[in-house]
């Protein structure tokens, strides 16, 4: 049970976002730009995967399965593929460029200072633009916020992973918004 009376029984981040709609709307706006906006050279699948990977490293059940299911939806893959990336992205069947970005995201998860110039260099050599590196770092940083918000307030999360998979197409269609929280 959540540590505070959220006055609603929605799972995960949706509970506190409804509890405090002023900040909820802004957090949704940030998620919409970073993850759903099509004006981005990183695919929606890759951006969701970066979020899912960081959430997995932060051991946040709700976020890693919401965003893992989103990546799964965009990739048209199965759950096993997403799990293989979370478990060991270096050996997963993904592009070398995405591996280099996940490596940067993994360092950001530990601490901003953990990102080494060699990692940035490697990503650039594999074709990553400054914009893509910026977005990777900000997505990873934002999930370090979202994950702490969700677990720091001890919100509840559905245990059945299929629930997350079933909701993904709707979220992919509608994007992130305060109004979408109660659907």
């Amino acid at each position, binding site marked *: 049970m959540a540590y505070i009376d959220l006055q609603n029984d929605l799972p995960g981040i949706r509970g506190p976002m409804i509890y405090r709609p002023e900040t909820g709307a*802004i957090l949704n706006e940030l998620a919409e730009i970073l993850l759903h906006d099509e004006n981005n050279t990183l695919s929606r699948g890759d951006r969701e995967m970066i979020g899912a990977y960081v959430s997995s490293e932060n051991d946040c059940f709700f976020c890693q399965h919401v965003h893992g299911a989103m990546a799964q939806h965009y990739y048209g893959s199965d759950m096993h593929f997403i799990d293989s990336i979370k478990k060991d992205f270096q050996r997963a069947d993904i592009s070398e460029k995405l591996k280099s970005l996940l490596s940067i995201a993994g360092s950001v998860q530990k601490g901003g200072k953990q990102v080494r110039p060699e990692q*940035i260099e490697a990503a650039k050599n594999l074709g990553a633009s400054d914009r893509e590196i910026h977005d990777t770092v900000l997505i990873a*940083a934002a999930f370090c916020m979202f994950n702490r918000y969700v677990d720091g307030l001890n919100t509840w999360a559905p245990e059945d992973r299929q629930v997350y998979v079933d909701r993904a197409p709707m979220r992919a269609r509608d994007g992130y918004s305060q109004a979408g929280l109660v659907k």
Partner: protein
Amino acid sequence: MPHIQVDENLPGIRALLAFSPETAGPIGALAEILLRTSDSLSRVDRELIGMYVSYLNDCFYCNHSHGEIAVCYLDGDRKLVNAVRTDYKKAPISEKLKSLLQIAAKVQKSGKDVLPEDIENAKLQGATDHDIHDTVLISAAFCMMNRYVDGLAANTPLDMSSYPLRAKQVAEKGYGNHIFLTPQP
């Protein structure tokens, strides 16, 4: 040197916000609500929580920027801000703020580190659900801001006399795109 090409005349997060004005909007709005709201948590309390989390994350720019903003609200009492940074448990602040700083410090490590006892203690000291909510989100938001700044190796001014000037600007005008669109103080 920053990992990406940004305006070298802008310090810290300001250069990153200018690089990406789309995301600067919500980031500035989030800071404005979380740090400039004044209710059962004062602006000083809110800035001290952000400053302390930035200190724990070893983010020099955020630590000193928000410390100086707190100094502005405290009419120059830098001694109090330093006392919170060094050992908040011994600082001359309320027991309620101490209990909230304890929650913020747990969130800095991981959301899962917050224990029911931490929440219970804060409630015993008079913290409301709203205070606890905002404390957790302020701490979480600084875990984002600090990583954004250091993860891209943003320029960190080492001239300490520049921090009070920028702090005064924020204390007077708040957060928002003006901090990178108007000339630097």
